Each structure stands twice: as C-alpha cells, then as structure tokens.
C-alpha cells in the first residue's frame, strides 16, 4: 500500500543550523502518528515541510506517492491544525470553517452546507456566528479541527494541538481526537513534546532529537524496548545503569557488580541498562533470596505521591529511583534502611552506552 506521507533523505537547514538531518519516514494511511521530542528537535519543522510551509533543503517528500516537496502549501491536499489554532479573529466560526472551500472557489451554498455539517460534527451547533475571541479554548480547538477537516484533506497535520488546554480538558480532547480520527479514517500526524500524550493517542511514535529520527515504533515498543539511551530517558522515567558487556547475557556495572540481560550482547561494548522505577522491587537486606539481578543500597529519600511512594536509593556509585505502588500489604521503608533492589531479566532493556 502507498504510504500517506513518505519522506526520503529529507534535510532542512536554516543557514548553518541543521534543523532536520537526513531523515527517512513513512506514515501509513489511516494511522494516528505522533512526532515526539524536546523543543528544537526538528519535529515542527518536519511537520511544516509536510504542510508546505517550509521547503526541504534536500530530499524527497511525497503524499500518496505524489512528489510534493517543492509544491506550495495551497496546492497540497493536507491541512493543518496550528498551535494556538490561528483562527481568523475577524471572521465568524462559520466563515472560518468555510475559508478553505471559499478559497478553492466552491460555490457559496455548498460551502455553507459543508461548513455547517462540519460544525455539527464537532458539536458547535448554534455557535456558528460567534467570533473566535468569544469562545473557550476547547471550542476554539474544535473550530480549528473543523476548519481543516471540511476540506477533506488526505492527511491532517496537528502542531501541539492540545498544548494550550488545561489538564482536564486535554485528557477529554485526547479521547475525542482519537475517536474523530477513527471516524474520518485519514491519517493524523501530530507533533508534541508531551510523551504521555504521544503514548496515549498514537498508533506509532517517531522520537526525534537534534534533527535526527531516533526510533519509530509503537508506544509499547518505544517504552519497553527503547532504541537508545535518549529514548529510554525521554519516554517515562528510568534509571540508566551504565556498564560494559562481559558476555552474551551479563553486564559489569561501574562498581563491578554483575547483572543479567536477555538481549544478545557483544562483549566489550559500553551499554546502559534501563531499569524503570516501577519494574524494580525492594526487599530488606536480611531476607534476600533472589533470582535475576540485584544491587544493595540505602534508602535516602521518600516521596509520597498518594497512589505510590518513590524511594530514592543510594547505591555505591549512583542514586536510583524505585516506585512502590500504594497497596495495603506494601512494606514501608524509612530513611537509612539497608535494602536490596532486584528485578528479573525481562524487566530491563539494554541500550547502547
């Protein structure tokens, strides 16, 4: 099947700064695709290149097999939901939604009918003659969606679509966007710096850093098998234990202790073991009989989160974090307690050091 969007060897330079560095990316039709990374990683530039708001310095960009890299934005069948929506403040909701159709020369009657239909779909009936300034953030967001979708784009691009909303509304909109995408059936490509949002909504995630594409995979894979130290650290919380591979399944940590890992490893390489705080377990030093790997340490800090406790554990050479769910049977530890941190081999992933 032809990919909805395909980028091959795409590079974008602004002067001497390389914003996007030779990336290859293929987005399937009908998928909810997230581009995730810290600010300045090139994700927004990539989105803008797909929209046509920037031209790539080099490379091929096609939409459903048709090369569009040098095509103006008004000649591309993709539409964008802008960060902060960019609604036209001097136009009503109806005029905003009908704007794209009007520009394409659709006749007035049809423009109106289709715009009204779209306004209904995003549940803004009755508000069509309001100006954007008279609406809440959530409503503005819906107008922005309607304004883009009414043109029946082949791909919808969303730039930090939920960034301007408060937490509760954001969570509601996450579900709603997901439902909308299923109903419309086209692929949504959205840019976010919020890893939780990406994990919740996306079918697949592309993690970007310093203009490079680090990993493109499903949320599960990104979380469970991060491809690099950066991905492991950026997605969720983790402890990175650095060391050197001794043989196929053993790693020597910096203090000399041995831990196991499932991956086939190449002896002598520098690696880091990513140990998620919620995957490790704690036990008192006295009552240990453990399979898998373990490290001894002392409880240093205790943070109470309501549904869980996070223990800061002091190891010989570094500090790590362990999360303990707040269950009635959980054994509580105090500052200074001598403990053992342990885990089974399946619970950690190994990334290149």
């Amino acid at each position: 099947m032809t990919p909805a969007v395909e980028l091959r060897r795409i590079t974008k330079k602004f002067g001497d700064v390389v914003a996007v560095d030779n990336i290859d990316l293929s987005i399937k039709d009908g998928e909810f695709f997230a581009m995730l990374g810290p600010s300045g990683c090139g994700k927004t530039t990539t989105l803008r290149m797909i929209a046509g708001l920037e031209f790539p310095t080099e490379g091929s960009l096609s939409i459903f097999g048709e090369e569009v890299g040098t095509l103006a934005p008004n000649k591309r069948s993709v539409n964008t939901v802008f960060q902060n929506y960019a609604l036209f403040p001097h136009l009503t909701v109806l005029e905003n939604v009908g704007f794209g159709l009007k520009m394409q020369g659709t006749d007035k009657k049809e423009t109106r009918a289709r715009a009204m239909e779209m306004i209904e779909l995003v549940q803004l009936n009755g508000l069509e003659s309001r100006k954007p300034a008279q609406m809440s953030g959530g409503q503005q967001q819906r107008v922005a969606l309607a304004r883009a979708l009414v043109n029946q784009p082949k791909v919808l691009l969303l730039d930090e679509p939920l960034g301007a909303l408060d937490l509760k509304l954001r969570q509601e909109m996450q579900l709603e966007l997901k439902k909308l995408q299923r109903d419309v059936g086209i692929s949504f490509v959205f840019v976010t710096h919020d890893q939780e949002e990406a994990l919740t909504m996306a079918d697949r995630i592309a993690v970007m850093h310093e203009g490079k594409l680090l990993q493109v995979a499903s949320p599960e894979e990104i979380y469970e098998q991060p491809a690099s130290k950066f991905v492991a650290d950026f997605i969720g919380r983790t402890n990175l234990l650095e060391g050197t591979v001794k043989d196929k399944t053993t790693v020597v940590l910096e203090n000399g202790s041995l831990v196991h890992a499932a991956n086939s490893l190449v002896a002598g390489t520098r690696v880091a073991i990513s140990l998620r705080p919620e995957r490790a377990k704690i036990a008192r030093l006295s009552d240990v009989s453990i399979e898998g790997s373990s490290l001894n340490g002392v409880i240093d800090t205790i943070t109470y989160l309501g549904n869980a406790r996070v223990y800061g554990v002091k190891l010989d050479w570094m500090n790590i974090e362990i999360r303990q769910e707040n269950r009635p049977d959980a054994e509580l530890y105090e500052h200074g307690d001598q403990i053992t941190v342990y885990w089974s081999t399946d619970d950690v992933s190994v990334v290149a050091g």
Partner: protein
Amino acid sequence: MSSAVEPRGWAKTALHVNGWLVYLFFYAPIVLLVLFSFSESRNVGKWGGFTLDWYQQFFDSSNARGALSNSVKIALIVTLISVILGTMAALSLERFTFRGKKVFDALLYLPIIIPDVTMAVMLLLFFGQFYDVIEAVFGIQMRKGFGSISISHIAFNISFVSVVVRARLAGMSTDLEEAAVDLYASRWKAFRYVTFPQILPGIAGGALLAMTLSLDDVVITQFVSGPGWTTLPVYVFGLIRKGVTPLINAVSVVMLLASMLLVVLSLIAQRSRRTG
C-alpha cells in the same frame, strides 16, 4: 503596572493635585481660545460680548478659504499616497528579508527624528535644483505649490504610516497568514482576506496621523510653498506674525475642530484595533 502598594498621605495628595493641574494646563488655553473667538472685542484676549462676526469674516475672506481648500486637497492626496507606500514598506519590513533591509529600516526612521527646520531647508534647496533640472531637461517651468508641498509631506508621512502599520503587523502572528495559505489561499488572497482586514485599524490609524501631520505642518510647508499658493497653517502663521486679530482666533478654532474630528476618528480606529 498594578500594585497593592500605592503612595499614601502627602505623596498621594501631591499626585492628585499634579494630575488635575496637568489637565488644567492642557485645556484652559484651548477653552479660552474658543471662548474669545466669539468675543466682540478687537483685543484678542478680552471679552466684549458675543458675536459670530469673526467666523463670518473668515468665510468671507477668499484668501482664507483658498488656503483652507488647499490644505484639504493636500491632506487628502498626501494621505492616500503615504498610506499606500507606508503600508507596503511596513509589509516588506515585517514579513520579508531582503538585501538592504537594514539600510531601508534606518532610512525610514530618519524623517521622524529629523528636526522640522532641517527637513525644511533640505527640501527648499532640493526644489530649487530640481525645478531647474526639470526646466533644463523637459523645458517645463514648474512653480512651487501643490506639487512641492505634497511631495514634501509624503516624504515624512511614509515613515509615520509605516511605523503605525508595522506595530499592528508585529502584533499579528504570521500563523494567520500561514493558516490561510494552508487553506488553499494564494498569497494575494491571503493578504486580501486575512492580513489586510487584520491590519486595517493600523492603516486607518496611520492615515489619520498622516492627515493630522499634513494639516498641522507649518515649517516645511512654508519653505516649499510658492507665492500665492499655500496652506491654512502657513497662512495663519503669516497673519500672526503681522499682528494678532480676533479673526485668527476664529480660524484657529476651525483648525481646532478639524483636529478634534481626527482625534475622534483615531479613537474609533484604536478601539477597533483593540477588539479586532
């Protein structure tokens, strides 16, 4: 700024008194001037019973009426051209990069900060040479008046208009223009349907400022106007130097009214700027 800590005691009183004095200072002269324009007395600063004679005299004087109509003609043409050129300049500086942009930007500031007198001298010498050159080349003899005054007013008004329009453009996110082209608008349509309505209050504000400055200017106009062809302020200035008469009071009030009308219009423009 808003702060819960405000001056108390004598400092508070002093601030209030200063505030009221400033307004008294601003408005007392204007109010008195209007009052005396209706006074029968030949002494400009003395009350001598109500009359409209001075206004009658003003409208009867063909010189005064001619100067007034000259002023209006010039203000209209100057505003039109300055608004078009100034808006284009503002767009180029706020939305594009091009070689020589910095020089252009600096050049655009100069007419605003240069003293009137210097600009007047510059244009006087310039038109002296310019008209000679035109006569030598095209054989047309040109006289100072409508043309030279309009050209001079436009030379400083382009800058004022561009500053006002630029402020408006700077406050308008480029997202809106990008959204328009993303929604299938050509560059021209994006300007026509999005940028232009957005900056319209700024353009209106710039136009009113240009008109005000054109109607107000004395120094530059005096240097570039020809014999028998001049504007109302220069005409009034000439009268004042010959000696004050109540007629000048009346003309002044007419000019005052014109200013006030423009203020009201500019306030309306500003209001829509805020809500737009």
